[in-house]
C-alpha cells in the first residue's frame, strides 16, 4: 500500500503541467472555465497543438503514433488537463474508433484512417443508438444490404453527439436477421457526405444542439469500409464500449467543477457574508468534496489495477454511478449558488455574442445542470449499472 506517485510519475506530471502552461491558449481555457461552448475550430486548434507534441493519442501504442502511456500516466495527463481547463479531447476518432481499427481493422484501414485521425483530417461521430432502443444497444434496426461492392444502408441513428461537425460516422448496422439479435450486426464506416444522409439537430432542454438524428436513405457504402468480418460487429462494439469506459468516474471534471463552485460561493453573498460561510451550504459542499475524495481513490485503485494488467470489471459500474452522483450534485449546488441569476436564459451570452445578465460565472450553471442530467442516462443508465452490480458482484 502506497498512495504516493513514483518519481517518474511525479516528473511526468511536471512535464504535462509545464506543457499546458506554455501551450494552452487562454482563449480556450477561459471558455472551458466559464462553460462557454467551444466551436469546431476551437477543438481542431487544440487537437493540432497536442498532436504536434505527440500527446494527442494517450491510449494508442507508440507504433501507431500514440504515446504508449500506461493507465496511471493517462490519469495524470487527464487530471492536469482538467485542472488547467483544457478542452477535452474529442473522443470519437481517438478513444473509440482508433482502438477498434487497431484491433480488428485491415492493414489498409489502419494505414489510411489512423493517421487521418491524428492529423484531424476527419471528424468522426458515433452511430450506435437508435430511436426507442435506450440502453438496449443490440436492438439495431438500421439495415445494410449487400449490392455488388457496396452496402445499401437504410435506417436511423440518434443521440449522435457533434454529428453536425462530422464528415465520417462509424455505425452498427444489421446485415442479417438470422440467429440471436447480437449475431447479425456489422461495423461500418460511412462518409457523411454520401447522398441519402440527412442530419437533423436535437435541441436539448438546456437549449443546446450537441446531439443529432442521422437518417440513412439508400446510402451506398463501399464494402471496403466494413471493419472486421460481416455479422461480427457486436464483438467490436463491446470492445469499443470497454475502451470508452476509461475515466468513467469523471474525477477531473468533478474536481474542476468543485473549484468553480467554491469560487462562485466565495463571490456570492448571502445575508451579507460569502455564501461559502453559510453553514448549511458549506456542509453540502463538504459532503460532495468528501464523496469526491473517496471516489478519486476508488478510481485510482481501478487505474492501478489496470496498470498492473487487470481488466476492470463491474467496478466501472460503481464508478459510473458514484461519478454521476458527484458531478450532478456539484451541478445542482452551482446552480443553487448563483441564486436568482440561475433564471435568465440568454443563450447568446454562452456563445459569446451578447452581454451576460448577472455575473459572468452565472451564465453557464443552469444549462450545465440541465445538460448533465444526461450523465446518468447515457452510456448505460445508472439503473442498468445497478443491475450489473447486483448481478456481477453481488450475484443476486
Amino acid at each position, binding site marked *: 500500500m502506497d498512495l504516493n506517485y513514483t518519481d517518474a510519475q511525479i516528473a511526468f506530471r511536471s512535464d504535462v503541467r509545464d506543457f499546458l502552461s506554455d501551450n494552452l491558449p487562454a482563449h480556450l481555457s477561459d471558455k472551458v472555465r466559464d462553460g462557454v461552448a467551444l466551436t469546431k475550430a476551437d477543438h481542431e486548434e487544440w487537437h493540432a497543438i497536442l498532436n504536434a507534441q505527440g500527446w494527442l493519442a494517450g491510449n494508442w501504442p507508440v507504433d501507431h503514433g500514440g504515446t504508449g502511456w500506461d493507465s496511471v500516466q493517462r490519469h495524470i495527463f487527464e487530471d492536469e488537463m482538467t485542472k488547467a481547463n483544457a478542452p477535452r479531447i474529442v473522443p470519437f476518432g481517438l478513444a473509440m474508433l482508433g482502438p477498434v481499427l487497431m484491433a480488428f481493422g485491415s492493414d489498409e484501414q489502419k494505414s489510411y484512417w489512423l493517421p487521418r485521425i491524428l492529423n484531424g483530417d476527419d471528424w468522426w461521430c458515433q452511430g450506435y*443508438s437508435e430511436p426507442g432502443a*435506450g*440502453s*438496449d444497444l443490440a436492438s439495431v434496426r438500421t439495415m445494410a444490404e449487400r449490392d455488388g461492392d457496396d452496402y445499401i444502408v437504410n435506417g436511423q441513428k*440518434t*443521440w449522435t453527439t457533434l454529428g453536425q461537425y462530422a464528415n465520417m460516422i462509424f455505425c452498427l448496422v444489421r446485415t442479417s436477421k438470422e440467429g440471436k439479435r447480437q449475431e447479425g450486426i456489422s461495423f461500418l464506416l460511412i462518409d457523411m457526405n454520401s447522398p441519402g444522409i440527412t442530419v437533423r439537430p*436535437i*435541441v*436539448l*432542454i438546456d*437549449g443546446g444542439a450537441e446531439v443529432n438524428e442521422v437518417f440513412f436513405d439508400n446510402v451506398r457504402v463501399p464494402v471496403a469500409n466494413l471493419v472486421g468480418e460481416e455479422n461480427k460487429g457486436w464483438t467490436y462494439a463491446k470492445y469499443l464500449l470497454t475502451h470508452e469506459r476509461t475515466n468513467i468516474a469523471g474525477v477531473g471534471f468533478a474536481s474542476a467543477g468543485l473549484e468553480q463552485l467554491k469560487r462562485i460561493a466565495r463571490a*456570492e*453573498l*448571502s*445575508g*451579507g457574508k460569502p455564501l461559502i460561510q*453559510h453553514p*448549511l*451550504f458549506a456542509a453540502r459542499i463538504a459532503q460532495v468534496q468528501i464523496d469526491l475524495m473517496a471516489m478519486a481513490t476508488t478510481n485510482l485503485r481501478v487505474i492501478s489495477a489496470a496498470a498492473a494488467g487487470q481488466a476492470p470489471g463491474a467496478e466501472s459500474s460503481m464508478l459510473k454511478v458514484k461519478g454521476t452522483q458527484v458531478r*450532478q450534485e456539484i451541478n*445542482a449546488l452551482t446552480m*443553487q449558488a448563483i*441564486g*436568482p*441569476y*440561475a*433564471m*435568465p*436564459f*440568454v443563450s447568446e451570452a454562452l456563445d459569446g455574442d451578447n452581454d451576460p*445578465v*448577472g455575473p459572468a460565472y452565472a451564465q453557464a450553471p*443552469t444549462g450545465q445542470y*440541465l445538460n448533465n*442530467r*444526461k450523465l*446518468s*442516462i*447515457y452510456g448505460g*443508465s*445508472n*439503473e442498468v449499472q*445497478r443491475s450489473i452490480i447486483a448481478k456481477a458482484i453481488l450475484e443476486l
Partner: protein
Amino acid sequence: MNFDLTEERQMLQDGLRRFLRDQYTPDLLAQIETSDTGTSPEVWAGLANMGVIGALFTEDQGGFGGAGFDIALVAEEMGRVGATDPLIDTGILGGGLIAALGDEGQQAMLDDIIAGTRQLALAHGEPSSRYDLSRVETTWADGKLTGRKAVVVNGGAADTLIVSARTSGDVADTDGISLFIVAADAPGLMRRSYPLTGGGHAAEITLDNTPGTLLGTAGQGYAALAAAHARATLAISAEAVGLMDAVRTLTTDYLKTRKQFGQPIGKFQALQHRMADVLIEIEQARSAVINLAGHLDADTQTRDTHVAATKTLIGQVARLVAEESIQMHGGIGMTQEYALGHLAKRLLMVDHRFGDTLYHMDKFIALAVA
C-alpha cells in the same frame, strides 16, 4: 376541519382547468417561447374575463376571493399546464401591494389590473441582495430613484413598476424601506428584458434619477413586502404542486407505454418503488401548501413559519420530481421538443424565486427550532 372546496371554488377550478387545457396547447407554448414577453395576451384577457385575476383580491378590493385557498387553487391550475402568465407579478405582488398600501387614487389601478388591462412588476431584488428581503441599496433623493434592480419578473412587459428604495437605515435594516409607483416609461429608467429558463421573461432595470410616487408610508414598506412575499410564496408553491402533478402524470404514462427488454418499464420494481416515493413526496408538498394557505392570515410568526416550512419542502420535492422524471424518461426527457422539459425546468426554477431551500431552512430554524 374541512378539506373540500366550496361550491364557488369548485366552479372556478373546473372552469379554469378547462380553459387552460384548451388554451395551453403545444403550439401556444412554442409561440410564447419565442414571443417578446414570454406570455400570451389572449390567455391573459381570457383569465381576466373568467375572473381569475379577481380571485386574487378580496371583495373590498374589487375582487371575488383573496383568501389563501383562492390563491392556491388558481396557482395550482396554472402550474398544471405550465402556464407562464404573470399572475404573481401583476396580481399578487404589484396589485397586492397597491391594495394593501395605496391611497384612494392609487387603488383605482386595481380595476384595470382585475380587468386585465394593466401589467405590473415588483422591482425589489438587486444584483447583490440574493433572497434577502430587507437588503435594499436603491436610493431616493429629491423625489428621484437611483439604483439597479435584478431579475424583475414581468419587468419588461409591465407598464407600471413598484420599486423599493432605502430612505433610511442600514443596507439590510427592515426599517427604512419605502415603496414607489413608477411608470415603465419614466425618464432615466432603462430595461433589458430577457427570457427565463422555464418560461416567462424578466428584466434588469436601471434607475437613474427616475421619478416615482410614494406608495404607503415612507420607511415602512417592509411589513407589506413581507406579507406580499408570503402570498407570492404560497402562489408559487401551489403552482409547483400543479407542475408536480403534471410531471408525475406524464412520467407514469410514459412508464406504462415505453417498452424495454420486452416489457413496459413501469413493470420494473425499482422504478415502481421510486415512483411511489415521488408520489408520497408530492402528497407532502400538497399538504404543505394547504398548511400555508390556511395560515396566510395568521400572526406574522405563524405565517412565516409556514412560509419557511412550505417553501423548503417545495424546493426539495421539486428537485426530486424533476430529476426522477427526467431520469425515468431517459433520452426523450432530455429533449426540448417533449412536453416534460418545459414543465421540469419551470418546476426547478421555483427554488430560485422568493428564497431557496437554504434561505427558508434558516428562517425555519430561527422561527421554530431553536
